[in-house]
């Protein structure tokens, strides 16, 4: 029984088939990467997993549960957290508040008790804060704790978004281009964090990334996509040297065509 299983998932936007009969399985505790040129359908797969898009057919099983029966706001409480390619933080709020929003799935108080701010609500706030502080320590965000997102540079926002996903305490983490727009040093930090997320926290990671260095250094398995179709799957080295992948990225030289 695999952890996350996609079977024959297809999504069409009118005449365009964004995801074409994709099947793959992610095992618990591994880092699984999706690579491919722009428009290959990688982010679309993420949006299907977040239940923003409804696939035309196929099935998705996560942790023994049928994901397609859940609504998009119920996905997080199953233990799936995600980041976005174009950062989607809550801009008019502080880093701390952003991370605390992620504790929503662990909320036990109701609206009325919160309006009265009963002692139980306060106790729960302490508990959430403790969890969030652990994430802040893990990602070295202490200096930015009370800063508003709207005033933060791009690189920090990227990390805050990773932190917000971790604050959910997920079982599966979906990272949509975690290193895009980051400097070489920042990308190395991301690589270390992904290692730690996998080994120390025991979280399974499904990642979309263009930076092949990062993909090679952290992934256990890689799947290459192009035009919504599966090209190759295997270890990073296998996929990198697969003729179909090279063709999709670089095209075929005239000599080979003959």
């Amino acid at each position, binding site marked *: 029984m695999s952890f996350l299983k996609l079977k024959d998932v297809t999504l069409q936007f009118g005449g365009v088939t964004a995801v074409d009969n994709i099947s793959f399985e992610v095992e618990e505790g591994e880092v699984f990467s999706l690579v491919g040129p722009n428009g290959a359908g990688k982010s679309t797969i993420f949006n299907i997993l977040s239940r923003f898009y409804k696939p035309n057919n196929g099935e998705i099983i996560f942790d023994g549960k049928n994901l397609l029966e859940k609504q998009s*706001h119920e996905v997080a409480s199953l233990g799936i957290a995600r980041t976005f*390619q174009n950062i989607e933080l809550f801009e008019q709020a502080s880093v701390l508040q952003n991370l605390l929003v992620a504790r929503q799935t662990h909320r036990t*108080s109701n609206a009325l008790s919160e309006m009265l701010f009963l002692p139980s609500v306060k106790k729960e706030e302490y508990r959430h804060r403790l969890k969030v502080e652990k994430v802040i320590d893990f990602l070295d965000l202490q200096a930015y704790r009370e800063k508003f997102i709207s005033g933060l540079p791009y690189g920090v926002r990227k990390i805050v978004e990773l932190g917000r996903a971790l604050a959910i305490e997920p079982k599966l983490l979906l990272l949509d281009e975690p290193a895009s727009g980051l400097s070489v040093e920042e990308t190395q930090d991301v690589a270390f964090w992904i290692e730690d997320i996998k080994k120390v926290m025991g979280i399974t990671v499904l990642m979309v990334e263009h930076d092949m260095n990062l993909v090679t250094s952290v992934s256990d398995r890689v799947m290459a996509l192009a035009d919504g179709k599966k090209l190759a799957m295997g270890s990073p080295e296998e996929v990198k040297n697969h003729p179909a992948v090279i063709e999709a990225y670089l095209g075929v030289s005239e000599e080979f065509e003959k």
Partner: protein
Amino acid sequence: MRVIFKKSYEADIRLFKDGVQAFWYLLLLVIAVILPFLINEYWVGEFSLMLIWAIAGMGLMLLVGHTGQASLGHAAFMAVGAYSNVIMQNNFNIPFILSLPLSGILAGLVGACIALPTRKLHGIYMAIATIAIGVLAEDLIVILEPWTGGVGGIFAPSIKLFGLDFDRYNNVSGLYWLILAITVLIVLGYKNILRSPLGRSFAAVRDSEISAQAMGVNIGKTRTLSFAISCAITGISGALMGHFSYVFTNETFNIVISINLLLMIVVGGVGFIHGAFLGAMVVTFLPSGISFTRDAFFSDFHIIPGIESGIFGLILIVVILFEPMGLYGRWLKFKTYFDLFPFYRKDMFRRQKTYLKTERTR
């Protein structure tokens, strides 16, 4: 500049940052309480009106400033509060202490019923839908004449509470204190919402619906809840307004009031509780200010039609152009300037660039 050294998580949760801040708010409360002894009855009445507007402003602020939803029909919910409160007292003999919260709850329920079908609307479409509600409410009041008195209006009884009579004309200070107490309770409730998960889910919906969903926030439920709470607060202010103005008709809660409410929170500063109060001050005291100025310049009784709306409009334009953060934003800048003197930079409050957002999957 005061540096607050935080030693526990409590520092970020408690109502006041530190003792100094608590002292200033306490001082403000003391001044508000002893105000009737310092000024004459006319001004006590004006301050009561200001507090009522501030409550209505807080209601709308929760929706516009903290959940990012527009409403151009909030006067309708003031009307629901005002009429239901008086009808409960006159027709069903329910005492004020019950009818006031009940009228708030009723306004909240009406708000929730309206929010359910409109919760998928955004921006301008939401504004159009709420304008329609505002217009409909006015007509409904006329149609429901047996209950509401139609265009003839309805008389609010004087408030009786614990054997005391808070009459609008005979006990001006008493009414003021009653309204002040209700205002303080609502401010506390509002503040509690802001520092709890509920307030954070509102902010999440405001700033990015898509990632709020990915965090497990139920967008529809959150927006409905925000609309309902907002309408409940506005309904309470409407009920108080009914008692304050003694007699009210369908004209009392027309579309101009809705626009005034919106103007109030924009001028005061969207997104701050203080903004509701500062905006309420402008809306309440500007008409008196205009008439006093007019009397000073023209000895004969001189009426310039539309001068109030004109000046309101002008203020709104000036505020939007030069101070989008409103009066409270101006105060924050002023305070920061002296806090950091001489290190204040001109662009400190400037909105930073927003990076590309994912709107396709909305």
